[in-house]
């Protein structure tokens, strides 16, 4: 469905576009950042998959409306959380890059 397409775009945007430079430059701590970020993206993706499954289930008549809506809300909140974490990481990265040497 359309939701999947949007989710995929956002997730690749978060995962590969902006943040991949952060991991290599971090040295020791970089791997931790990268791993936790990958896990975060995985969680966001999982919640979007379950939301997708719930919407499909509702359209097939197997699930109730509230199940689908709760799954969508969960996916939305997880995505917002992921975006917040990404914003914080990017802010920290830019703050460091702005430092005069």
């Amino acid at each position: 469905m359309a939701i999947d397409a949007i989710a995929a775009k956002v997730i690749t945007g978060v995962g590969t576009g902006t943040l991949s430079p952060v991991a290599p430059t971090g040295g020791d701590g970089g791997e931790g950042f990268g791993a936790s970020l990958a896990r975060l993206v995985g969680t966001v993706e999982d919640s979007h998959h379950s939301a997708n499954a719930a919407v499909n289930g509702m359209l097939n008549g197997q699930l109730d409306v509230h199940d689908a809506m709760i799954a969508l809300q969960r996916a939305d909140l997880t995505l917002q959380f992921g975006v917040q974490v990404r914003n914080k990481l990017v802010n920290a990265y830019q703050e460091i890059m702005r430092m005069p040497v």
Partner: protein
Amino acid sequence: MSTLNTAVSVAASALSAERTRIEVAVSNLANAGSTRGADGKTYRRRDVVLATDTVRSFDSALGAASATGVKVAAIVEDQTAARRSFDPSHPDADSEGFVELPNINPAEEMVDMVGASRAYQANLTAINLIRDLVSRSLELGRA
């Protein structure tokens, strides 16, 4: 967020249970005049039995479940006697001219439905509250 997830799952289980209660009340109401059921006998009023249910979550897997959901344990038939009304011309009338009508009181079913729909709304409010709390918490990072 796992605790809040558990709470949402619990409220969702209640939503499903209340929906079943409404469905059963609607079926009772619709069949208030049915003289023939699937087994050939008069329709009997149905009642929902609710029971506690452990919601599967990370917390409960760790044995620290504080929240317990609800599930429909059974749908039982009300065994009170059927109403008998005198109507000799009815095709289902017995030799004495009485027809057995279901043991359903429409007013009682309406009260059941109101109760179930209020309970449904209460659980919706709980879910909305939890969602609001989570999004407010996310605003902490937006400064």
